[in-house]
């Protein structure tokens, strides 16, 4: 096989994979009617996702907020303008860093385990067994996971935003001489100045998190459902799930920011 053929084959595979994910997302949406029947399982999934990701998310959020305040504060101090540190930290966390950090951690912890669980079920014929029992694997396995992560990602993001701002406030007070009152007032002013129920920075960030959660779960379940070839196949499915989730988080994050801040004003 020559180089163009290899490129063509690789492209065909990527398009095929993307088509599978989109098809899975649509079929998951169509199976939402089964949600009442899967409530218990969905809540279990949501609880597991939250518990599994919470500690690491909070640690990363606190340090990310602290680093953000520190790096920004060093520059602002040169201009004697450290009073806006709260504004910058709060806006950065809510708009971008909160959803991004939460998404990446969920992809690495929960998304990978979803791909491994479903991949193991696939290679050990459990998914086939469901089909044989006329149980649709989409509404039994995929839909509860997608709903769980779509709900948990915004909730975790809200916590990440708050903990990140707390981390920033500590650094601002300890290292940059910005009082807690000034920092929090500045952060509050930045987020509260809105005619909407939620400030734009917060709702765009939470919307991003909702999209990230849905994307991570769908991509991870798709990777699991396409696993084959035993343990090696499951390992590859996990790798594919995390890689594709992180790529999607970045691309979708860009598109959503562009849409809300440039296209829709």
């Amino acid at each position, binding site marked *: 096989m020559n180089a163009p053929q290899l490129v063509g084959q690789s492209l065909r595979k990527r398009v095929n994979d993307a088509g599978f994910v989109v098809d899975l997302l649509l079929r998951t949406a169509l199976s939402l009617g089964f949600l009442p029947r899967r409530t218990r399982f969905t809540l279990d999934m949501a609880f597991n996702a939250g518990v599994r990701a919470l500690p690491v998310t909070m640690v990363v959020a606190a340090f990310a907020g602290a680093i953000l305040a520190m790096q920004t504060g060093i520059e602002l101090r040169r201009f004697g303008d450290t009073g806006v540190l709260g504004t910058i930290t709060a806006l950065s966390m809510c708009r971008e860093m909160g959803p991004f950090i939460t998404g990446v951690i969920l992809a690495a912890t929960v998304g990978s385990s979803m791909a491994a669980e479903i991949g193991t*079920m696939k290679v050990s*014929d459990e998914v086939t*067994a*469901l089909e*044989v*029992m*006329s*149980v649709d694997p989409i509404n039994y396995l995929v839909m509860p996971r997608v709903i769980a992560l779509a709900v948990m990602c915004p909730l975790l993001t809200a916590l990440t935003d708050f903990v990140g701002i707390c981390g920033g406030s500590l650094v601002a007070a300890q290292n940059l001489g910005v009082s807690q009152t000034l920092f929090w007032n500045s952060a509050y002013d930045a987020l509260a100045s809105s005619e909407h129920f939620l400030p734009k920075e917060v709702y765009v960030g939470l919307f991003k998190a909702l999209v990230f959660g849905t994307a991570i779960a769908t991509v991870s379940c798709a990777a699991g459902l396409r696993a084959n070839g035993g343990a090696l196949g499951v390992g590859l499915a996990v790798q594919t799930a995390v890689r594709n989730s992180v790529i999607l988080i970045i691309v979708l994050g860009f598109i959503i920011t562009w849409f809300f801040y440039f296209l829709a004003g």
Partner: protein
Amino acid sequence: MIELNDVKKQFGDRQILAGISLSVPRGMNYVLMGPSGSGKSVTLRNIIGIVRPDSGSVRVGGMEVPTMDRDQLMALRRRMGYLFQNGALINWLSVAQNVALPLQEHSKLSSSEVDDRVQDVLRMVGMQNSAEQSPTDISGGMKLRVGLARALVTQPEYVLYDEPNAGLDPIISHQIHELIAEVRDRLGVTGLIVTHSRACAVHCGDRIGILENGRIGLEGSVAELTSSGHPLAKAFLGSGAD
């Protein structure tokens, strides 16, 4: 009745089924034997509609399986049971929950009726004392028995058995064979059994078919095949070893 007529299936360049034809009359067990990779499991998967043949006819209860839409296929599968080689139990459900799953998904039975039905089939396969155990805590033979209970709990008309005694010791194998024969005799279930085991064929099979080059190379009762002197019959039934 299960009927396959000139069924062909190819994966890539490899022709797995090259015109297999067989029929399993109602209430009988048909044992399908053949070398590894000869297409035995693919045959079962064609019958239950997981795999579609490239050509040929697959009929279950008079209905053509490959042309069924999704709803028809799901309706057909509710009348069928399938025993996987490893049981294929869902790991996060208990033994009883695994067995109850098809009933909870499709029947309109109350939870107490489901429990009763689950207890009945677990008792039938001798697993009533393990109802609350996790599949990860039970042996391979027990998993198979639970898998059989799950296949039977919906009171199917047809059961497909994929290597029901693979990797089991002779004592557990014998128990499984007795169960399969009992399912036919007591419940009148039509069975298609894929196996390498002579003991399974002798104990459970009313009719034996041996696959050769993607089609049935030899067919008959155990007595007919063993007395035929055919090399295939000798290879699969003649040695007496299991």
